[in-house]
């Protein structure tokens, strides 16, 4: 069994400039300025935080799974991981992590992928990509985000081990109530988050729960 490194943050909630709880099935869009710190807290345990990142000054350059994992030659996100855009530009760095590792291969659920993975009669079920679309639809900033801006994202608190044979497993979570991951923005970053409503696999332990989001100025 691989030993996971867990690192706490010195920041306390009282000093945060922003503190909100996002229920399961809801979304969140927020602009971080350089050096601001974002913390995502897994309030109830084993809740997938599907999160995309954009260079806020050039939103066409979005988070890239391959750029991020090939630069560190490791598929898991953890303390020290630099989240990169398609161009290779560093967007954020993970500066604290009490969970130990996070997935970025599993992407987000959608109505269509649910029909493929489980059953064609569950297209009605709520899903992350619908949450992303609604956030884009509501966004009134200067850039017209649309479906083309969606790309494979990060899945904080989700556990997707890969075997040496290349098989992908969706395992029970390794997170627990109160675990968190914390980032420093390396530039102006637009964060797009879906608190995953998936009920068909163990990514949320079949019980989607709230996430708490905090921001500090440094």
């Amino acid at each position, binding site marked *: 069994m691989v030993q996971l490194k867990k690192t706490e943050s010195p920041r306390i909630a009282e000093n945060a400039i922003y503190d909100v709880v996002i229920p399961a099935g809801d979304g969140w869009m927020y602009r971080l300025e350089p050096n601001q710190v974002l913390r995502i807290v897994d309030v109830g345990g084993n809740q997938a935080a599907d999160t995309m990142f954009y260079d806020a000054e050039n939103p066409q350059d979005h988070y890239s799974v391959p750029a991020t994992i090939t630069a560190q030659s490791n598929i898991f996100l953890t303390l020290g991981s630099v989240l990169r855009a398609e161009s290779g530009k560093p967007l954020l760095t993970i500066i604290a992590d009490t969970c130990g590792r996070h997935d970025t291969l599993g*992407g987000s659920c959608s109505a269509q992928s649910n029909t493929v993975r489980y059953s064609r009669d569950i297209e009605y079920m709520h899903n992350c990509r619908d949450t992303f679309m609604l956030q884009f639809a509501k966004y009134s900033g200067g850039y017209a985000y649309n479906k083309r801006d969606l790309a494979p994202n990060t899945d904080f608190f989700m556990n997707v081990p890969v075997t040496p044979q290349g098989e992908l497993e969706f395992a029970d979570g390794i997170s627990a109530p109160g675990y968190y991951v914390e980032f420093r923005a390396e530039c102006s970053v637009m964060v797009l988050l879906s608190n995953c409503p998936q009920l068909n696999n163990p990514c949320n332990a079949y019980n989607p729960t709230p996430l708490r989001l905090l921001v500090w100025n440094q």
Partner: protein
Amino acid sequence: MNTIWKTTLRPGQKWSGHIGKEKLLRFTSLAAGANLAALFFNRFDFSEKYNMPDTMKAQHTMHLTKGDVLLSDNGRVLASIVEDSLGWHDTITGVTTREQTDMKYEKTDYQHMRNDWLRSGYENFMVELVKNGLEPRDMAPPVNLYSKVMCDEAGNMVYVKEHCQKGAMVILRTEMDVLLILSNTPNPLDPRSEYPSVPVDFEVLPAMPVDALDYCVNHRSENRRAFENTWDYYTLIG
């Protein structure tokens, strides 16, 4: 069956084009150590494109081979893999940027090297995206045909050097009308220091219509449902 069209992709070369459904795309590596990055879009709706996680999740695999399908972000089959002499094609390693290409091999430019300059996969894709009316936002993880990258228990990624031999062949079958973008450029995790890119033959042949007994359709129940989604799409278009 007869080849209806053929080209050879030189080391570093890019390509893009529209390809109708029910065509076989046969790729043959003319030397050892190929890496051919491929992006797929729905030809009639570029907002629908190849989706790496949806493809891996549905088939519980990150090594694409015969029987596997390349899924769009709308749960449909853009293309399936009908023959494969390698057993593993990567889809998590992306492409190299200009900075990585300059640093890893040598700094080259057109002014000094003319067409022998070393191309980067990222720039190749950017050019072909824009050429087809798309933008940087349309970039997403490609399939890296011919490459094998394994992971250990701790998640460390290891590029397998001897994976692609001369003559290695993979045949895809288009299940939708697609815009295909190719970049014949090195894999970002290939440790070789000499720009590792080799010529690849690309041939297109007609395919037999897919029926309910098809190998890829029956490879997994997920694949059948994705094919059903695809057939419904074309039924509604008419």
